């Protein structure tokens, strides 16, 4: 599944991945791929604008990790981001239940 199919869900997915553990962009993409069983294989360049946008919205915070061989930016969910994540998780669960109820035979 690429960028177009994931449009509208990317923010939630990024918050969910980073809600479990702070990570840098490359690792975020790996986690998305691993946790979706390879289904979410989006163009990697789309992740960074989304991470920056979420940071500017106050949902993520970031800092340079100097301990790695190559300097990289590590992102973590802020308290505001965690509230947003919780709210969107509830919305998604309700939406998934409703869709399931409609399409179930």
């Amino acid at each position, binding site marked *: 599944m690429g*960028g*177009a199919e*994931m*449009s*509208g*869900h*990317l*923010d939630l997915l990024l918050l969910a991945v980073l809600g479990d553990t702070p990570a*840098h*962009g*490359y690792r975020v993409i790996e986690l998305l791929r691993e946790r979706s069983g390879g289904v979410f294989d989006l*163009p*990697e*360049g*789309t992740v*960074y*604008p*989304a991470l*920056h*946008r979420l940071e*500017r*919205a*106050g*949902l993520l915070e970031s800092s340079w990790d100097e301990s790695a061989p*190559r*300097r*990289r*930016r590590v992102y973590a969910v*802020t*308290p*505001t981001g965690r*509230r*947003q994540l919780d*709210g*969107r998780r509830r919305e998604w669960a309700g939406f998934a239940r409703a869709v399931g109820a409609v399409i179930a035979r």
Partner: protein
Amino acid sequence: VIDAYLADVARHLRVHGRRRRRVLMELEAHLHESAERVGQEEAIRRMGTPEEVARPFAPRAFDRLFEQRDRLAALLMLAAMAASVPLALELHALNDRIGRATAAYFAFLAPTVVVALASNVLVLLRHPLGERLVKPLAVLAGVTAVVTLLSLPPADGVFTGYRQAVAAGYETGGCSGRALAVCAADHSDEIRIDYTAGAIFLTALYAWAVAGWTPRLRRRDRALA
């Protein structure tokens, strides 16, 4: 190959200064990490074309403004507090003319002002404590509003003093053609109600902008399509 690709991204990138350097550094780190596992060509293929990578970083004016809403609200609150200083000085001066002390009321207002100032400055600096001070600020502002609106002590003394001073002719601005006592009561009510309503509105706006409802980012989600 990676350097040439990054130069191409930089050519299309519509952000400047520190943010531009950060974007390019992140992309460079990503590409090198990816290249170590899948090779440079594949790493670049997975990243997308330079135009596709650079385009979403160009911020929309409204989005940028909206994302700064906490700082804008903090600035608005600071401006409103600064604008109300002349009124506070006038209230004090008029009460002073008739020998009535205002210290108790201003001491009552002080915690709200101090917490508001601290929160505003910390929010401007994007320090997390600024957000944590919003709830105490809302409580303090609410108590202050109720006391002022209902003319409970210590607010009642200051407004009674104001009315007496205006009725005694120490301040007659905007009273032409009206009995001073009536004018004094009207002005006192206007100040009490208008400023309290303004403070409540501003505090609610600030709480929303800094700590409250977070947008669902639908507009920005669409931008990812």
